[in-house]
């Protein structure tokens, strides 16, 4: 059974100078005809499906539409065309520190962040100790967050997130945090979550990580789907060659995909 299925999904993003303006600017710009709000296809006609236990790596250069695609799968954005079918609970770890507030203490932030991640209160009460222990912040529980070092903050962020039990896990470059010992610990923990049986989607700029962990590859180029294949090594090899040569057409032809035009 497919846990995740994307059928011809296109996602529009709005760009232009319409952000951060006031009512006054809006009226003036409308009268002068300079109001700037354009639709921009961040992703076009993406189709693929994943099964239980799959680990998908998404590759592509900046502006390929990777992050937007993740946002659509996690329900933050809605596809403008096409359909996304999801069986199960999606947890997206797009940014580990989202929701932390500098004025709150470590304990308060842990509960807030846990709530935002979709944990229940019962779960948080049971796991709170484990989270703090894993983050090695036993002595800082009641300290305001703003007095923590950035390393401590990311340790806590990782630790809270590491207790997720999703059916579909979405990771955006958040594999390992901290220094030395904690880095290894967090890497191991991430592998443990992935091995836990979930379907995982990973965006990473570290090709080695993708080679090592992924079972399928989605290659995006300026919003177009160049390739979707389970030949991970072959696709990453081709991707690395493309990064050298810049000739995208050749690979699109090879995989029967589309491109956003020559570089």
């Amino acid at each position, binding site marked *: 059974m497919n846990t995740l299925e994307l059928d011809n999904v296109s996602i529009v*993003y*709005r760009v232009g100078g*319409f*952000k*951060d*303006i*006031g*009512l*006054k600017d*809006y009226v003036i710009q409308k009268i002068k005809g300079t109001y700037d709000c354009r639709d921009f296809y961040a992703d076009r006609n993406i189709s693929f499906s994943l099964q239980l236990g799959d680990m998908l790596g998404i590759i592509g250069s900046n502006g390929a539409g990777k992050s937007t695609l993740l946002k659509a799968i*996690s*329900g*933050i*954005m*809605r596809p403008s065309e096409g359909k996304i079918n999801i069986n199960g609970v*999606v947890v*997206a770890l*797009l*940014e580990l520190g*989202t*929701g932390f*507030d500098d*004025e*709150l203490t470590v304990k*308060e932030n842990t*509960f*807030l962040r846990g*709530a*935002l*991640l*979709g*944990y*229940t*209160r019962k779960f*948080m009460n049971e796991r709170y100790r484990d989270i703090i222990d894993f983050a090695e912040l036993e002595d800082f529980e009641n300290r305001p967050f703003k007095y923590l070092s950035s390393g401590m903050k990311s340790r806590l962020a990782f630790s809270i997130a590491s207790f997720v039990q999703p059916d579909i896990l979405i990771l955006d470059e958040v594999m390992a945090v901290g220094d030395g010992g904690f880095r290894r610990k967090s890497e191991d923990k991430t592998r443990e979550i992935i091995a836990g049986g979930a379907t995982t989607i990973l965006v990473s700029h570290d090709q080695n990580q993708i080679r090592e962990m992924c079972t399928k590859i989605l290659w995006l180029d300026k919003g177009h789907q160049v390739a979707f294949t389970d030949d991970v090594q072959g696709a990453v090899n081709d991707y690395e060659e493309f990064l050298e040569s810049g000739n995208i057409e050749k690979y699109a032809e090879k995989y029967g995909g589309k491109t956003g035009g020559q570089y």
Partner: protein
Amino acid sequence: MIKSLKLKLSKDRFMFAELVKRDFKTKYKGSMLGMLWSVISPLITLLVMSVIFSRFFGNKIEHYTIYLFCGNILFSYFNDATNYGMTSLLWNAHIFTKINVPKYLFLFAKNVQAMINFGLTLCVFFIFCAIDGVPFTWKYVFLIYPICMMILLNLGIGLILSALHVFFRDVAHLWPIFSMLLMYASAIFYDVRQFEPAFQKLFLCNPVYQNIKYFRLIVLDGTIPSVWYHLMMLGTVLLFLAVGGIIYYRYNWRFLYYV
């Protein structure tokens, strides 16, 4: 199906409670003094108004301090709830652009805070009524109606404002000005009966005044407003809630383009 819905609800409730706590703690920085201040500050306004305006209106209106208080307490609640609520969506943009959360929760959390302040001031209000010798009657039970209407009105207007604030940033400057004008049109310290009857009806277009009048009728006159009056208030509130709800529903997926 029902089980998963129940789980979703309990998760949302937990999230909501944590957001309320966060807003509370960041506002008062954990000090009780901060909370006390939000009760004292409307009382100081009341004191100043009472000293000044008693000279002009005091001998024409019975229990003038309570008359003032009715207006003050409801208007400060409206003012607090809408002004805090207005910024709730934009200020939480860093969350809803990264996590899939029901966006109205941010506004509701802010409203809880204003509601608590209102509740505390309401206690002081009743103490004042007792001191001033206003008779307590069973009709006070009816005050629940305008209180509920105020809560819903503030939510409705908060929905509209918080969305507008995402689209147009200067709403943050325009609303306090409008809100001040509305205060002068709420007959807080004067009596609308000084105007011609036709003009008096115009005051009822102001939803805050509808509630202030209700409060005064119960507390000072001991009369319960007509069924029509109740329906008018309900209609007004539903209108604002509907407009706010439709905006949130339609723009739910588009808010993130603007931040």
